[in-house]
């Protein structure tokens, strides 16, 4: 069920306020909502929230036979269907434009950027590899599901521990977590996605981490995925709003600063959670 497009007073008010660099929730134009990460009891289960936008990520692993084209690599599959729980306009089975964008972006940011070392997931070449399944549940949409989903995904990958496996010749012994401490995944780098929303009036500055109304009223969206080491993974620009090269570089620099902040927040949250966990090894 599509909601009606924003009313004229809402539209005019938001554009007017943005001309004066005012946002409805009192944020500065280049201020992100502070992310909050809460971890579940299982390893690899994390709920990420940006203000009222909430996404839950869950990882499980099972051992499978690898594809014949890539016998030395494990597999990561991402499931990100938006259900009406996020907002009443989403339907299962009929991907909205936003859902398609999110699925493509997650694929580029988490799989194609080589954040996860797939070769480390190999147990016996050609016979047994780990298949990781990342499932994202979109719990609430208050704008910017994409950034929230990417963050939830990468944090879940960093949080997850797979069971330790011992290979003697052709025999594989999987040690349950109660016997041997589970092993973290090999993550090369931590990419974060930062989105900018552009508006029809060219004199209005773009805003970072748009809220729901700002996203609906935007003329174009640009998402930049990069890590704290200033390495760009993805630059995606939708909508056709013209952007000068100098401005683009300036916004990417803003995104670098945000990525560094997010990195600090994520590392702290992971450390705090890990120190609170009691992993017993007999």
């Amino acid at each position, binding site marked *: 069920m599509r909601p*009606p497009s*924003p*009313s*004229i*007073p*809402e539209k005019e*008010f938001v554009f007017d*306020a943005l001309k004066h660099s005012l946002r*409805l929730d*009192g944020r500065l134009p280049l201020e992100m909502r502070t992310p909050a990460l809460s971890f579940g009891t299982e390893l690899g289960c994390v709920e990420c929230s940006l203000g009222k936008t909430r996404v839950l990520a869950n990882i499980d692993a099972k051992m499978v036979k690898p594809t014949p084209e890539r016998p030395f690599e494990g597999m990561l599959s991402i499931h990100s269907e938006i259900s009406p729980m996020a907002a009443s306009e989403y339907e299962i089975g009929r991907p909205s434009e936003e859902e398609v964008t999110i699925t493509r972006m997650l694929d580029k940011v988490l799989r194609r950027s080589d954040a996860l070392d797939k070769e480390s997931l190999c147990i016996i070449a050609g016979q047994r590899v780990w298949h990781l399944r990342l499932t994202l549940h979109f719990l609430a949409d208050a704008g910017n599901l994409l950034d929230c989903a990417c963050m939830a995904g990468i944090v879940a990958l960093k949080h997850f521990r797979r069971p330790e496996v011992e290979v003697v010749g052709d025999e594989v012994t999987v040690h349950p977590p109660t016997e041997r401490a589970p092993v973290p995944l090999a993550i090369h780098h931590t990419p974060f996605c930062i989105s900018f929303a552009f508006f029809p009036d060219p004199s209005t500055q773009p805003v970072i981490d748009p809220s729901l109304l700002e996203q609906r009223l935007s003329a174009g969206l640009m998402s930049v995925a990069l890590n704290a080491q200033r390495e760009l993974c993805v630059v995606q620009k939708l909508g056709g709003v013209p952007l000068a090269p100098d401005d683009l570089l300036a916004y990417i620099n803003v995104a670098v600063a945000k990525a560094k902040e997010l990195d600090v927040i994520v590392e702290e949250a992971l450390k705090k959670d890990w120190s609170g966990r009691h992993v017993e090894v007999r």
Partner: protein
Amino acid sequence: MSVVVPGEHVPAQHVNLKLGPGLTQSSSSPTVISTRAGTLNHSANRSKWWVESNSRRYVPAPQESVIGIVTQKAIGSLVYARISLAHKDMEPELECFDAQTRKSEGFGELKGGFMVRCSLSMCRKLLDPNHFLLPLLGSQIPLEVAVGVNGRVWISSKELKHTIAISRCIEAVDPDGEGMEEKALRTFLGSLDA
């Protein structure tokens, strides 16, 4: 004042029993059953009973004032209207004037300003003349407000910053959000840049 869940039997008995929102009487037996989760209330003489609950989804009922967005002809304009006809199987009908006085009485198109979404119980609080929020805001910022019981509130004031401040205060006091009390809200309002 007890908490009830849907399907619970409610001991409501009176000669002139009037059932308010959240209660229904099955056609066969005289038992009264609640249809919503919330607190059960009744009037002093026990003739009127109702269930107070909070939700964000509005179900139209006649004689209620709501804010709607026009979808045909003048697309996108906001109107403040009264529901004249509401049936669960049909689209509700609205009218933009008061049925008794045949005058507009503030109904009609709402120009300018901004619209905020909130929960249904927040709307009822705003319509209550004894609630602290609107008089408190009105004493500091000149404002115009139209409250629709469908979860939408139209606000208008001279400065953009003031309108933003009012919108944030409504969201802060909303029981769905933070549910701030008067004292906390005064501190919050003071901290806003207005």
